[in-house]
Structure formats: C-alpha cells, structure tokens
C-alpha cells in the first residue's frame, strides 16, 4: 500500500494550478475574468497558489453590467487589493453609449447577452490572447463538452463541432493572429467541490452568499431582489424574506433561495440536499433549451 495519496480536492487543485501555469507559459497576454462570484474567487485563490511567492502575473478583468449587487462590487475591489492584483473594469453601459450594444426591452431587461459585446471589445482593446473563465462542465450541457483550452476564432466564436482533441495533460494553445483562447481551469469541479474547497482553504466570499433579510419579488418562481433595474408587473409586490444567493450574477436574473444558512458548513449541507440545480435559479438559462450553447457560440464566457 502506498502512502502517496491525494484527496479529490487536492487533485482538482493540482490540475487547476497546472493549467494556469501552462497558460502563463504559453500565452503572452492572459487575463482572468472576474465576476466577484464564488467560482472566480476560487480561481483567484488558485492563481495566487500557482505563482506564489510572485504576484499573479496577469490582470483580472471584470465586465460590469451595471446591474451588479453592491456587495459584489465592494468585495471585488477589496479582494483585488488584498491579493495585489491589477483589476481592469469595462462597462456594458459604455458599449450601449457607443452603440455597439443595445439594451433589451421589457420588465427586467437582461444585460447578460450584452456582456459578450463588452467582453470582446475588452479582449480587443488589451490584445488578450487567453482569458481564464470559472466555467464548470457540471453546470450545463453545453459546458459538458467544453475543453480546458477552448479555441475562439477572430470573432470570439466557439465552434462545438470543431474543437481540438485534448489528451493527457498536453494542452495546445497554438493560434493564428487575432484568435484567442478561453481557458477553464476548474472544468472538472462541481458546485459541491467549489464549496468544499472554499471551506477547506478558508477563502473569504461576499456576504450575500450567507443568509440575510431582503426584499424580493416572486416572478414565475424566481425570487428577484429589489433593485432599480426591475419593474413590478400586475399584482407583483416586494416581500421581505430570509434568503441567500446560491450563484451571483446580474440582479435582473439571479434568483435567491430561501435559506437560513449562516456558515460554510450549513451551505455545504444545503448544497448536498439541494433538489434543484444551481443554474435553476438563473433566469438567463431558462430562456431556451439551448440558451447557453447559443451564447457560447457568440463568444460568451
């Protein structure tokens, strides 16, 4: 019997660190897409570990829709400062003002699709040749076939039928001028792995992941937080509930769950007994059966 044994979390960590170092070695201008959500927080933590004692050798890039939770933005700035990383913020509002993106109509216009425009503009502005994303294959079926190194053409598009085979741990980041890669170091992690790792490593996360009182409106089963970006329809009204967020995205499409979970242990227990997928709280995925596949083809995260 061997004493040389790594737990599943340590194996996943080692794999993610290997992928991050591979990007730092193979590309000239990488960036880490940072949203302030738990997956990208774990990514920043992994990047710190990968390059310690040096600082993270690439900037963090946040595409700000203008519809973020204020707690997320505060956390973003605090974290960037704590880890000594350079953070670049680009605003969807600027793309709208320029006319490259057009606001949706309706009672809760989503800027989810518009992020793609701003993201591709930022990639072009800074000539990023590889962008780390916190996407996981367990999240959604279009992501289940995603590579670690995902090739994007000069329009930023993903072509699911023409992906490069990925064997062993040999990652091919070769590309033509103008093309770039999206890289997903935590591809093999599940929602549960992320929470367990946050607990194991004691990683700080924004307060809105824990239970709190908030005014929400129940829209077709999704509990949306009160904000300036939502217009009440018909009989709808805000009610104060004890909730927390299981994922963090735009206020217009991120649903809360009723929960009293006040610690990581309680969250892990809740995730373990959850009866709905994590993205079940995301109105953006409910728009159609292939919503994610379509968005990814256009250059989404």
């Amino acid at each position: 019997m061997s004493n040389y044994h790594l737990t599943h979390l340590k194996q996943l960590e080692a794999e993610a660190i290997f992928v991050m170092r591979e990007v730092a070695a193979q590309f000239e201008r990488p960036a880490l897409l940072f949203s302030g959500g738990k997956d990208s927080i774990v990514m920043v933590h992994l990047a710190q570990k990968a390059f310690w004692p040096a600082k993270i050798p690439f900037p963090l890039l946040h595409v700000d829709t203008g519809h973020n939770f204020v707690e997320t933005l505060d956390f973003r700035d605090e974290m960037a400062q704590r880890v000594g990383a350079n953070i670049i913020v680009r605003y969807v509002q600027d793309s709208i003002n320029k006319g490259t993106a057009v606001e949706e109509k309706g009672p809760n216009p989503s800027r989810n699709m518009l992020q793609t425009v701003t993201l591709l503009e930022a990639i072009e502005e800074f000539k990023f040749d590889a962008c780390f994303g916190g996407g996981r294959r367990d999240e959604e079926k279009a992501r289940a076939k995603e590579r670690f190194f995902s090739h994007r053409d000069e329009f930023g598009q993903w072509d699911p039928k023409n992906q490069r085979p990925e064997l062993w741990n040999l990652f091919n980041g070769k590309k033509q001028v103008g093309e770039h890669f999206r890289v997903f170091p935590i591809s093999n992690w599940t929602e549960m792995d992320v929470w367990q790792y946050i607990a194991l490593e004691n990683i700080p996360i924004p307060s809105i992941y824990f239970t709190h009182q908030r005014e929400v409106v129940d829209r077709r089963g999704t509990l949306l937080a009160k904000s300036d970006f939502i217009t009440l329809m018909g009989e709808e009204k805000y009610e104060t509930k004890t909730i927390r967020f299981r994922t963090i995205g735009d206020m217009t499409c991120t649903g809360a769950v009723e929960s009293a979970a006040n610690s990581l242990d309680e969250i892990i227990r809740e995730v373990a007994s959850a009866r709905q997928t994590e993205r079940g709280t995301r109105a953006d995925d409910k728009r159609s059966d292939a919503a994610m596949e379509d968005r990814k083809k256009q250059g989404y995260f």
Partner: protein
Amino acid sequence: MDKNTVDLDNYLSMDLLRFTTAGSVDDGKSTLIGRLLYDSKSIFEDQLEAIEEASHRKGKEYVDLSLLTDGLRAEREQGITIDVAYRYFATPKRKFIIADTPGHIQYTRNMVTGASTANLAIILIDARNGVIEQTCRHSIIASLLQIKHVVVCVNKMDLVNFSQQVFEDIKAEYLAFAKNLSVKDIHFLPISALMGDNVVDRSINTPWYSGKTLMETLETVNIDQDYNFTDGRFPVQYVIRPHSEQYHDFRGYAGRVEGGVFKPGDEVVVLPSGLKTKIAAIESMNGKMEEAFPPMSVTMTLENDIDISRGDMLVKADNQPKVGQEIELMICWLNEKKMVPGGKYVIKHTTKEARCIVKEVKYKVNISNLEEIHDNKEIGLNDIGRVLIKTTAPLFYDSYSVNRSTGSLILVDEFTNETVGAGMII
C-alpha cells in the same frame, strides 16, 4: 431523494476516480450512466422533470434515463454524439469523473481522448450478442492507452432471463480474447442498466452472483498504484521569479511531479545540461512541504544557481529517463487530413515543444483484432499505427507503459495549429 445524510467531513478523505465508457447507440450506455447518476442521487428535480416530460412526449412508458446524457442541439439534430462529454457524481467514498464517448469506429479519436486520462474503463456487452467486434475494439483501445482497470458489464440480463450460463459463457469468451491485452485487472458483472439490477442496488434476480455491484466496484477499485511513484520525473513548467523585496533572490521551478517522490535534500540531475544539484525546498503558499509526488503541482528551489528553463527536467541521478531524438510510437490519428509520411509536425511532450519529421510507418494496426497491417500504411483519421519520428531536439522520455505522462506526446499541424496525432512511446 434525501441527501441529508451526508457526512460533512467526508470530503477531506474522498479520492477521485476517472473512468471512461464507450458504447454504441443500442447497448445501453446512456441508460447505464443515467442509472448511475439517478441511483447515486446526482440528478436534481429540475433535470428529472425535464426528462420525465421528454420521455412522456416521446411516448415512453418509463422514464428514459438515457435522455440525461442528451448533448448539444447540434448533436440532437443529427441524432449522434459528436464528442467526449464529461459528467460527474460522487458517493461518500469517491468523486467520479466520467468521460462519456461514442463507440462507433468513426469515433476512435474520442475513445482515445477519453481513455487518455482514465483509471478505469467500463466495457458494455449486450447479453444477447456476446463479445462482438466493437467489444474488442473498446478493449484494445483501453489496453493501448494503458487503462489499469476494466469492468466488463454484461448488460440486458433481463432479456436473457438472468441466465448464469449466458453470463459465464460471455465471461469465458472475453477472457480468451483478453489474454493478448495488457489489462491485468478485469471485473465481470451481470447487470440490467434499464431495470437497475446490480448497478447500485444488488439484484434479487441474480442469486448466483455474489460479487460487487457496479457502484461498489467503482468505489473500491484500488487505484493507489495507478501513478508511477518510482521514477523521479519533474518537467519544469514555469520559472517563478518574484523580483520583490522579500523574495529578492527567489528562483522557483514550478511544475507537476510526473513520477517518483521528491524530498528536500534529494540529489537531482537537470536535463539536458546533466548538472547535479540538490533540492533546497519544496515551496507552497501554505508553507514548505516535506515531499512531493504525482500528481502534485509544486514549486521547487535548488541549492545551486543553474540556468534552467521550461522544458527542462529534474530527475534522480540513479534513475534517468531515456534521452533521444529517434523515437518509436504508437500513434492514433485525430484529423481528417491524413498523416503525411516525411511530413513535419510540432510536438508537445511534457512541457517541452519541438518539431519532428515522420521518418517511417512500420505498420498499421487493425483495432478490432490487433493484427498488423503491412500492405497499407496510410494513416488517416481514427487509424492507429506504429511510426518512427525524429525530433529537432532530444526528448527526455519513458515508455508509455511505464509512465503515461513522460511516455505520451501530441502532434500539432504547423499550419492549422490543430492537434492531429496522439502518440504513445514504445
């Protein structure tokens, strides 16, 4: 579905098993995966509702668990699986990663890709048909890719009245075929993926079978020795130089341990220079470490200041890899554009990149029976053959059968940048 009985500290000792499944449309592969996910309570209500609704719409009398592995719209439109899909589930003992690959001969590329990182392969046999050509093909690929453990599931036992004789005959037939393969650890199970017999729950229909269920097998297969802990191999991936006040002279060599065990104080040789030094420390953000072994990603500092860069390798002085430029490999071709004899390709091997020329095709392999084909040496998409390459720079390598990391490489087309070949060094 009650998952509240989870022990919260379990995850601190769980390990990880990667397995591959290959099969055709009819052999019940999707149903089996659906069953594993469903019976291990890895399916959420919204997913279950979606497939219940789809099963009903398609006029099925039962919930069609195979719909759980339904892929991209592009695939649904064509009614085929194009690609390797990765799926996840966990029990209190292990986390599992499934590389789910289509099994048709046209998808050898996908099977090889899925198998390249797997500890274990599930081979499905339809109890009514016994060992067929496709069974042999899957097994040969598993063997070529050096998968250590194979679980042969004799499926659809419900359609042969759970007959022990049928099961024993198939087992004998498979063993006769498998004696030429390199897989040592083979398990046989009588199952019905559709009905759930011996998948997660023990079947009352097979009183003559006293072995483990599939889930028990997956949970208990011993994978402790799947990595090579003998031959010290540390390919340098990235050099860390903080240039900070606190770490002014720090020069760390980052990489993943691909073989053996390294400890501070160990004497190491740097390839290709051949210079000797000692490991000063194994560093991490959480403090210095006492040892490093596969598959850990670590950072080492050395006692002497030696010029070392990405693609170099730290090894033990008394146990060195082969060093050479003329290398024989089994290659699996992954691209529509055929391999060009005499053609030049970029190769990636460990953290090293070089170029190579294909000097000779020795033979092609019939992947249904392992026979060598000498009269047609053209290597096209999904073909496997034995070739000789010459590289522009020396590689530090081991035989693939000894070390999957230092024994594998990929070929990249210089013009399209596509990954076109997967090589396993003889």
